[in-house]
């Protein structure tokens, strides 16, 4: 499954709820819209996200981090930055579930 997370982890339970459903195997995570704030270095959710990357691929959407003034260098380690074509590719590879 592809878990699409689009709410800020500071104001919504979307990330926390999704994490409970992210399995060991081929589950991957895409942070979009306000969901990208979870990926910021130095923020409260950096540790949780970095832990996730140990078992699952975690992506965040370039357009959303740029809009929010987050530089690529400010994205936590092992999180991959992708564009909308990458988003399409992930949907092709995995069945999507949106957590909003």
């Amino acid at each position, binding site marked *: 499954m592809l878990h699409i997370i*689009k709410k800020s982890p500071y104001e919504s339970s979307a990330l926390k709820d999704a994490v409970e459903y992210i399995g060991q195997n081929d589950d991957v995570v895409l942070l*979009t819209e*306000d969901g990208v704030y979870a990926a910021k270095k130095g923020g409260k959710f950096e540790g949780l996200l970095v832990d996730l990357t140990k078992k699952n691929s975690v992506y965040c959407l370039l*357009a959303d981090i740029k809009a929010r003034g987050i530089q690529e260098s400010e994205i936590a380690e092992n999180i991959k930055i992708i564009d909308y074509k990458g988003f399409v590719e992930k949907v092709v590879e995995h069945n999507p579930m949106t957590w909003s």
Partner: protein
Amino acid sequence: MKLGVLIKEGPYMHQAIDTAYNFIIAAMEEGHEINGIFFYNDGVYNRCATLEPPRDERNIMKLLTELELKGVRLIVCVAAGKRRGIVNQTVCKVEEISGLGQLLELCITSDRTVTF
């Protein structure tokens, strides 16, 4: 691949339709087929014919109509539309209005269904 899209949020208020639009453009460029966009919940407002955003902002209604001209099927839920006033007189195109069965059909006939 055949991709179905479900839009649950209204224009401008949420980023959902903007993300969906950028996703759809990228998917079409990559050679995928957009099997249809179903507008449910506040999503029906995206097809309101009278949107007049400021000049320096995108007109979401027009962007969607451009997708339609490229062959993408747009489906506005009749029940969600009536509840919110998106009806024959106010929708972009009367032919777009249809029932919830179309959403299930989209799930059946698409390889993937993505919700925004």
